């Protein structure tokens, strides 16, 4: 339960933001069930990316390719839809994402190249492949593909957005993996000290490859939701998504040097960023100020976290 107590300040900050915006948004339109359900749907893509990013950062790595993988997986899936239906499209999208993840993982685990550079390179490659489709133009999802469109747009029982449920599912699986298995313990050990982890016999290369594979697969899942939500694949989309995911991870208390961080923290981090985006929009704050405020909040959150750990 120590972990949960660590989360309290973050949750307090999230609640403080909700109260602030409930007061600042005219007509009491912020704190409505509809608006909050909308929020869960809006943060789903960033949160799913951030779950994978947490694993990568936890072992002292990083994955800059996730934004491009969102675009690539969505594009491959939508291109496959007419011939293979939704199961084939999902498999093709996730398979492509997994392939990029394996390349990232193999390079990071078997060579001395830094993950920052590896994933910067695969980001460009993935983006380039996505832009090979349809001259880089958006490709529509046919209206007949109701299952694929439901992934991003439907609401369970007409209330709970499906992408939010997918996000929760991904969260539960990733959290169990990280916090309840030996695999998860190994990741903390690797992030704490690679040498020590190697000495106690943790299979470093296999663990590292798995982390990048998982990170990419989650990005692929986000890509499917993204294409579904936009009713189209957009090869040029997803730029900067990796930075938003990193922001959620660090606001959620994961240390950039590895070894420290939790998935519940990341979830709350993604919620905080989502509340900020939504609240500032609805309070009518000028978009230039929104940047400044978001930057200051990230700076403040990380500062507090660093101080608290000292």
């Amino acid at each position, binding site marked *: 339960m120590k972990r949960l107590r660590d989360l309290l*300040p973050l949750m*307090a*900050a999230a609640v*403080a*933001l909700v109260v*602030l915006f409930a007061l*600042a*948004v*005219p*007509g009491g*339109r912020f704190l*409505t069930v*509809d*608006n909050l359900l*909308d929020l869960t749907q*809006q943060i789903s*893509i960033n949160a799913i990316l951030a779950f994978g990013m947490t694993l990568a950062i936890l072992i002292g790595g990083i994955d800059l390719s996730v934004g491009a993988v969102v675009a690539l997986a969505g594009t491959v899936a939508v291109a496959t839809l007419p011939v293979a239906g939704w199961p084939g499209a999902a498999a093709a999208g996730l398979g492509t994402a997994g392939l990029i993840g394996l390349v990232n993982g193999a390079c990071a685990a078997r060579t001395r190249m830094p993950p920052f550079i590896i994933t910067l390179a695969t980001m460009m490659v993935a983006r380039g492949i996505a832009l090979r489709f349809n*001259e*880089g*133009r*958006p*490709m*529509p999802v046919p209206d007949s593909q109701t299952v694929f469109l439901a992934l*991003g*747009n439907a609401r369970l029982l007409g209330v709970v957005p499906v992408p939010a449920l997918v996000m929760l599912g991904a969260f539960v699986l990733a959290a169990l993996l990280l916090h309840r298995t030996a695999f998860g313990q190994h990741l903390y050990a690797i992030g704490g000290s690679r040498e020590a982890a190697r000495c106690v016999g943790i299979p470093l290369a296999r663990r590292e490859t798995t982390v990048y594979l998982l990170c990419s697969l989650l990005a692929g899942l986000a890509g499917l939701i*993204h294409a579904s*939500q*936009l*009713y*189209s694949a*957009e*090869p*040029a*989309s997803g*730029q*900067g998504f990796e930075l938003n995911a990193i922001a959620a991870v660090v606001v959620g208390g994961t240390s950039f040097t590895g070894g420290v961080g939790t998935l519940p923290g990341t979830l709350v981090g993604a919620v905080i960023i989502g509340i900020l*985006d*939504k609240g500032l*929009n*609805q*309070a*009518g*704050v*000028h*978009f230039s*100020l929104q940047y*400044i*405020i978001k930057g*200051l*909040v990230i700076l*403040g*959150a990380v*500062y*507090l976290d660093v*101080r*608290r750990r000292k």
Partner: protein
Amino acid sequence: MKFPPLLAAAFAPVFAMLLLSGCGRPADTAAPAKGKLFAVSFQTLNNPFFVELNEGIRKAVESRGDRLVTLDAQFNSLKQKGDVADVLQQKPAALFLNPVNWEGVKGTLLDARRLGVPVIVVDAPVSDPELVLCQVASDNVEAGRLACEALAALKPNARVAILHYSVNKACIDRVDGFKAEMARHPGMKLLDTQDAKGTTEAARPVMRDLLGRFPELDAVFPINDPGAIGCISAIESAGKAGQVTVVTVDGSQEGARAILAGKLHSTSAQFPKQIGRIAAEKAYDHLAGKPVDKDIKVPVKLVRRENAAEFSGTP
């Protein structure tokens, strides 16, 4: 635990900003809830064209005592979808939309329909016109055609490159118009088409490479004024000023000044303020129960040396 004061310190800027924004920019805040609320979402505001279009809408809306919220999607379809969902929760009287992705806004259009908010698309078209009240845009095909016509009058045997922005529907229309006119001039030849996103910083290196690859290149169509500025810079740094003719579309102040300086041959002027004003008028017509035309094309006008002064913004 010494957390709460620190927390307050971290979030003080947020409070301060919210307060500041409340007094500095009355049009962007929703603080005094008087008049009707309108919202507009642009694919980018990093382009004078959209800033002026925004001004056109804002003037029309505020002159009637109503208010406008402006949102910048920064070329991110997902951000646009989220932004618009946020303002739709506030039940605006109408939504003006300039889509990043003309296929990808369908979900947004369905949401707006469900909430009964009329949508007016400005500048770039969408692929589901039946979901919107009307579309107001420049006649982009004609703008491209005028650019090619101006070029053909000067260089009937031009060797041309196009700097495209191939994911933008308005730019696709311009290039279609340009190519259609080119087909009427058998002496002209298209050497290559490259993508430069219609920005100065992207156009410059692309143009440098084209000049290196094609020594015979003597004309370029960079689809908008920011792209043309990048091309001109590349041409000058390659020492080819005066040899390569630049024709484009936009009619911004920067473009007109480049024409007066003899660096740009022509720009087909769009009238963004007018697009904004017409879009707002259509919204009010609809709210008053009057019928509205579905597809409104705002005419463009060729800017050349003779008339560039009136577009340059200098008295």
